[in-house]
């Protein structure tokens, strides 16, 4: 049984801690990770809670495979809370080493409630849980915090998950980082942690993690290891995700200069090929994993000499092409700084790109930027902008630390045209004008713009659909992707390893069953995936959103055709097609045309208890 069967409650206001048993019916129904995490969040929060108030629970989750030898799943954790960036349910996952320590300490979940009156960190040493003063850690980066805590507690093998200055200062794009480079990146979970005056969670777990059937589990893991040496993980083991740079550029899908262009003239210079040849010094991996994907890049010379960071496509794109920056040394430094301050590496680049677009179009001026010349391509300005946002320095830092949506509201005027977000969450690295299944998929994602909620870019990139338009049938593609990814994120399998599940859900069900000893079928798993998506949607409705009104696209995607000569020239998402796409998606989901899950659908997926929430909303919409 690889569940710990226990939940740890930490009340940061009183300092009281308590351990309660995990309801094993919930465990099977919601699996773990984001599924179980969102269910626990719903059950422990009040409707309409302010994400940055003490009433918003912050939940650390492990998965059913965490703590076992399962490659890519043995090392994971997820954080679930209401997002201060989107006001929707927020969730994010990270790998590395931290998660397994939580499970070995004996917990499936840690629920933080309340708010400490001074900056603290939580020290979980198996059954002993203490709040320790963290004033000396204020302003330190997550990595510095990690090192300091391990030194002062005196055990090298302690694992730490921490926020940086951005989280302490409640930046809505603040992340949480563990094991130097691994981030609970999206949705501002770091700000929630900061709002609780919680600097870090340090864990040492020494208990056994057992599985239901050791002999068969071992053979299954052996098979996964073998598959990990094969084609399914080739990309991640070789060039890594930066391979996408040239692929997307050729497809006119490499969003450039804040979604102005869809191709980047400097793509070669920031390609995965160039990165690996000139900057990647070592490729390492997470605990228990049979592949390795962490491309650690070091700048060998020049003004950013010595700068070191883990480079993936998304952050390379956001700090590179999206800001018009064609220098990998500056991009490596930008990513290092994002990690240093604890900023989401996707959001930060999109935020700076917005500032650059506003600057180029006269929406903000030298006066607003204190003289910072925020022209596209100015790498020095990129680096300085990240420092100011990470530390909330000046009007500029304060404004853009709020994320693109709020920055646009603060600036007013035309600024909204340059804010590339969905539901408040900054877009990841896919030009949605030329990848239109992705456009639809990202728009309906429950946590805002996200490539990892459905992988909806995949049919576009693989040429399975006409990617320059939206038509009926896309809804089903997106739904299937979402339900599958909900399962993946609840088992907390690394998405880089999704391809090694050759038999898809069947393999995942077997994985689950062998580890937990709880019978599971592929059908039950995909139903859980559907349940989780409906759960998230209903949570968003309870929090005041979660309807068609929120499932929207940024201005540029709908109004600014790709201008340059390329295969995507003149392409943009047409509102009419997009609306048809939304209706199609809601229909296959069994939701109303306003995007609200029907009572019938909720019954079907075992969420009867949530029917009052949608009933109320459907009535309110009718009145409107």
């Amino acid at each position, binding site marked *: 049984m690889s569940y710990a069967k226990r939940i740890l409650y930490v009340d940061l206001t009183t300092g009281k801690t308590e351990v309660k048993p995990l309801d094993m019916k919930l465990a099977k129904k919601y699996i773990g990770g984001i599924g179980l995490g969102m269910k626990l969040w719903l059950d422990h929060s009040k409707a309409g809670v302010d994400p940055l108030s003490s009433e918003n629970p912050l939940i650390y989750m492990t998965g059913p495979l965490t*703590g*076992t*030898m399962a*490659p890519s799943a*043995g090392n994971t954790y997820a954080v679930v809370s209401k997002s201060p960036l989107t006001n929707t349910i927020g969730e994010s996952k990270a790998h590395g*080493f931290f998660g397994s320590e939580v499970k*070995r300490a004996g917990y499936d979940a840690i629920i933080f409630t309340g708010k400490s009156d001074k900056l603290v960190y939580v020290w979980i040493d198996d059954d002993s849980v203490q709040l320790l003063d963290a004033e000396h850690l204020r302003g330190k980066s997550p990595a510095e915090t990690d090192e300091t805590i391990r030194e002062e507690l005196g055990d*090298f*093998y302690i694992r730490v998950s921490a926020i940086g200055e951005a989280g302490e200062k409640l930046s809505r794009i603040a992340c949480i980082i563990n094991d*130097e*480079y691994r981030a609970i990146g999206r949705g501002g979970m770091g700000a929630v942690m900061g709002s609780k005056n919680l600097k870090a969670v340090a864990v040492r777990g*020494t*208990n*056994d*993690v*057992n*599985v239901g059937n*050791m002999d068969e589990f*071992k053979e299954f893991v052996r098979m996964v*290891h073998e598959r*990990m*040496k094969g084609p399914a993980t080739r990309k991640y083991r070789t060039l890594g995700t930066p391979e996408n740079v040239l692929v997307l550029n050729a497809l006119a899908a490499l969003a450039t200069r804040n979604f102005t262009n869809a191709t980047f003239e400097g793509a070669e210079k920031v390609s995965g090929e160039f990165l690996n040849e000139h900057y990647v*010094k*070592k*490729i*390492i*991996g*997470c*605990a*228990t*994993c*049979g*592949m*390795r994907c*962490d491309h*650690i890049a070091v700048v060998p010379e020049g003004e950013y000499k010595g700068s*070191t960071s*883990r480079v993936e496509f998304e952050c390379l794109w956001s700090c590179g092409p999206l800001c018009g920056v064609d220098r990998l040394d500056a991009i490596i430094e930008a990513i290092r700084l994002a990690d240093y301050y604890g900023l989401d590496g996707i959001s930060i680049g999109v935020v700076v790109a917005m500032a650059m677009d506003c600057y180029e179009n006269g929406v903000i001026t030298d006066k607003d930027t204190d003289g910072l010349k925020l022209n596209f391509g100015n790498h020095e300005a990129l680096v300085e902008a990240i420092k100011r946002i990470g530390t909330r320095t000046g009007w500029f830092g304060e404004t853009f630390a709020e994320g693109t949506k709020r920055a646009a509201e603060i600036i007013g005027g035309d600024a909204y045209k340059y804010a590339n977000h969905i539901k408040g969450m900054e877009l990841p690295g896919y030009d949605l004008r030329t990848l239109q299944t992705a456009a639809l998929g990202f728009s309906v994602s429950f946590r805002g713009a996200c490539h990892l909620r459905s992988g909806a870019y995949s049919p576009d990139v693989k040429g399975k659909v006409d990617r320059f338009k939206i038509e009926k049938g896309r809804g089903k593609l997106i739904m299937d992707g979402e339900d599958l990814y909900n399962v993946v994120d609840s088992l907390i399998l690394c998405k880089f390893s999704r391809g090694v599940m050759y038999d898809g859900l069947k393999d995942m069900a077997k994985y689950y069953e062998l580890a937990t000893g709880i019978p599971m079928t592929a059908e039950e798993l995909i139903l859980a995936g559907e349940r989780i998506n409906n759960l998230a949607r209903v949570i968003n409705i309870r929090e005041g959103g979660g309807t068609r009104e929120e499932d929207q696209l940024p201005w540029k995607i709908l109004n600014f055709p790709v201008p340059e000569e390329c295969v995507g020239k003149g392409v943009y998402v047409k509102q009419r097609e997009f609306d048809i796409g939304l209706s199609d998606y809601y229909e296959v989901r069994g939701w109303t045309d306003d995007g609200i899950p029907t009572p019938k659908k909720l019954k079907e997926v075992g969420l009867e208890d949530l029917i009052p929430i949608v009933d109320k909303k459907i009535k309110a919409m009718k009145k409107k």
Partner: protein
Amino acid sequence: MPTIHEKKFVSGDPAKCIGCRVCEYACSMKHENTFNPTKSRIRAVRLNSFVNLAVSCRLCEEPPCVAACPRDALRQSEETGIILVDEDKCNGCGWCVEACDYGAIQLHPETRKVFSCDLCDGEPSCVEWCPEEALDYTTKDIVSQKARIGAVKKLFRESLRG
């Protein structure tokens, strides 16, 4: 005593090791039928991204752990060179732990007796599982040979291209 051509141990290659700890999981699975790195006889050390190495018993000649035991609980196997622990005699005093320069003999969290690598009867589980092939079940003789050949190859790489 085995000859230097026979005395095998688990050797870690820092150029290949990535600190993933698969060896620890494999070890605890094999010996304890559970997943728990604190019960592993080999331990991975990641100092930073670039410096990683898994460490287990070096099978020293005249092992200091054996010499340090005041209760004669430890002896070195004549046949393989591994450290054998008499659990009835060991009282967990830890002098052997202090004597070992490599941290390769540890106190077991449950039995409170010391334990170290037993080479899995000649088929080390960690070597079998290491995804990076960073672990080798080999002799010091062969380790030095390989290093020597590598050095010479490097020195004469121009001529080798011939």
